[in-house]
């Protein structure tokens, strides 16, 4: 299992390589990417911020919980913080498993729980020069 909160660009193929073993028939790599619009406004850049120690710990707990719930071999999660621009990968989740069904389900559960439980915030910068913190989800203790 590997978890990182990083200011550097995410090496997505490296992340997928970390989880693969010869017993695996499936490796799912999910990437979340910065898009250029939100609720009808044109977004030009984002800044992510995290309560880093807790965010890492929460991600590890989510991975451990998901690993015990599905027939997966390994998981790796990287979340980027700092200033990002359109097209940058903000989050990547790699899951390996002997069979694809478990890998798909586990990958989906990690991203959904990340969005509800992990203390990370997103400031959007718009084309008109304004900026605003994205209205997030009331965190649910996992």
């Amino acid at each position, binding site marked *: 299992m590997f978890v990182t909160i990083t200011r550097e660009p995410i090496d997505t193929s490296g992340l997928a390589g970390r989880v693969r073993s010869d017993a695996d028939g499936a490796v799912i790599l999910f990437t979340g990417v910065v898009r250029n619009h939100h609720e009808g406004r044109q977004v030009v850049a984002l800044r992510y911020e995290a*309560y880093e120690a807790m965010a890492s710990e929460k991600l590890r707990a989510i991975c451990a919980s998901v690993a015990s719930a599905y027939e997966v071999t390994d998981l790796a999660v990287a979340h980027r913080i700092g200033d990002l621009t359109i097209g940058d990968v903000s989050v990547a989740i790699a899951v390996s498993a002997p069979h694809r069904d478990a890998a798909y389900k586990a990958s989906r559960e990690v991203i959904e729980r990340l969005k509800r439980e992990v203390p990370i915030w997103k400031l959007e910068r718009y084309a008109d020069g304004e900026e605003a913190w994205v209205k997030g989800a009331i965190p649910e203790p996992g």
Partner: protein
Amino acid sequence: MAAGEAPGTRVRVTSLFFAVYRDILGTSELEIELPEGSNVKALIEAVRKHAAVDELPRHVVVAVNQDYASPETILVDGDEVAFIPPVAGG
């Protein structure tokens, strides 16, 4: 302190503010002293009073020493209490 009044033990906790809460409070960190036995709810009220304008929402989620905690959680000296705005990772 008035004569005859028991001094009482106090606890000192570090409050951390992130994202929109940091903008509201104008700082990322406050050291706050509370009477021994105070809970998270009492700390949140103390922080509200510290702010020039109370723009914190009615319901504030906090983590004590990196674990989400209820308003009834009793604080002890040296606790780190993070005020966690609605999260938006991903």
